[in-house]
């Protein structure tokens, strides 16, 4: 398709999406939209669309038209129901009536729910019985395994074992992961899951967490193939802030136990 026609097609599709969205968001009469005309426009441009983003735009426009058709159905159903009255008439009436008259009308149709929120003698009795059998707080704490310990000393190794201190500083960990990424890709790229995947789920999560920082700080880039949904990582020779390369986008990547198990099975196959 010539570039000029391509840009017209994109503009038309965008216009259709905006039009349908405004009808939905502003609650306008959905029959203001000529659905046949919009479908004709889509049909006219569809054979010339070949880029994935153009096809996505076309699908979005079609989805918006479907939403308008759904609204048209609802609109007809509402108009045919016994509850339907012209909103304009009601609004006029609301504006013309005094507050007192409005309240009077409302009181004629208002049947408030009746409910009690007070304590009863049986529940009070039950509560007292519970209080009588409840041991004092210091006894309960002792029973729960809490005991007083004198202050003491501990070593750095113990704190690392208890995961209170990290073994390596965060920046050191990032650096070693970056070196590993460069080593494993050798100037090329690697599948995201092949890089973060590890023998245990816990370690996989840790690597995914660190990798997200590699990407955010500009040590590497994430490439996504929209058709196959495959993600690859490519290391950069020098850390480059994201803004200097291209537009940054956030991308949530679920690391679920099921995904990890699937990766393990694929690797072993």
């Amino acid at each position: 398709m010539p570039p000029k026609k391509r840009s017209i097609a994109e503009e038309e599709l965008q216009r259709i999406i905006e039009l349908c969205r405004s009808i939905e968001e502003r609650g306008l009469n959905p029959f203001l939209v000529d659905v046949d005309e919009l479908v004709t426009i889509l049909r006219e441009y569809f054979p010339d669309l070949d880029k994935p983003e153009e096809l996505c735009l076309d699908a979005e426009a079609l989805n918006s038209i479907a939403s308008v058709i759904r609204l048209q159905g609802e609109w007809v159903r509402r108009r045919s129901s016994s509850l339907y009255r012209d909103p304009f008439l009601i609004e006029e009436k609301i504006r013309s009536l005094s507050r007192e008259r409005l309240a009077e009308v409302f009181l004629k149709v208002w049947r408030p729910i009746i409910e009690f929120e007070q304590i009863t003698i049986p529940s009070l009795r039950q509560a007292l019985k519970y209080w009588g059998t409840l041991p004092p707080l210091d006894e309960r704490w002792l029973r729960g395994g809490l005991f007083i310990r004198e202050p003491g000393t501990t070593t750095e190794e113990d704190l690392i074992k208890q995961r209170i201190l990290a073994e390596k500083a965060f920046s050191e960990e990032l650096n070693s992961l970056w070196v590993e990424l460069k080593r494993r890709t050798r100037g090329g790229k690697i599948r995201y899951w092949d890089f973060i995947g590890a023998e245990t789920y816990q370690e996989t999560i840790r690597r995914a967490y660190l990798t997200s920082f590699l990407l955010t700080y500009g040590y590497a880039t994430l490439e996504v193939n929209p058709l196959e949904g495959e993600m690859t990582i490519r290391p950069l020779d020098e850390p480059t802030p994201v803004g200097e390369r291209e537009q940054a986008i956030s991308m949530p990547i679920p690391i679920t136990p099921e995904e990890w198990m699937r990766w393990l099975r694929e690797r072993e196959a």
Partner: protein
Amino acid sequence: MVKGARSLRRKAYYTIKMKQASHLLFYRRHKIPGVKGWELRRALGSDYPKVISLLDDYLEKLDLKVKVISEEGVPEGEMPPERRDRDRFYRTLRGGLTPKEAKLLGWRIDDLAALAVAVSYIISKGGKAPRKEVEELLRVKIPGWKVDVNLDRFIRYGYIGEDENAQLYIDWRTRAEVDQKELIDLLLGAETEPMKPPPER
């Protein structure tokens, strides 16, 4: 003689069941008042619709009633009893309130008018209306600072709900307490008061 004894036993049985039903319906057990049909079935047995109907007859003398609200929006009375397990049962007033009584319940006339406006406007728009439009309509007769306070209060009480797109919709309490069709009919039929001449200086 035997027939009489059986009848007495049945009467005693239903009296006990009515008391149980009354306790269930009067006291709030969940975040939202009322009891679900399946809860009544569990507590009262499979003939709970009959117990509720007897209780409703008894409450009529006290100007109270048991109101059933269908989750699927089926009007009261049209839902077959065997499909009532998912419905919610409330106890409401049978007749209306006078303005003086409403005031005793803690509702000022301004607040009631604002509730009437918000609810009827949302109904007229098919059950959903932008909060901004409702606010603008309320501001015609209520001071601006009070509009927000009122709308938030109605949302908190469950008369109206608000979604993430700032659209207001009719919520559970309006469905339980307000006859929406009658409200619109009365509103359209209400006579507008003649404009008063400005006071003489």
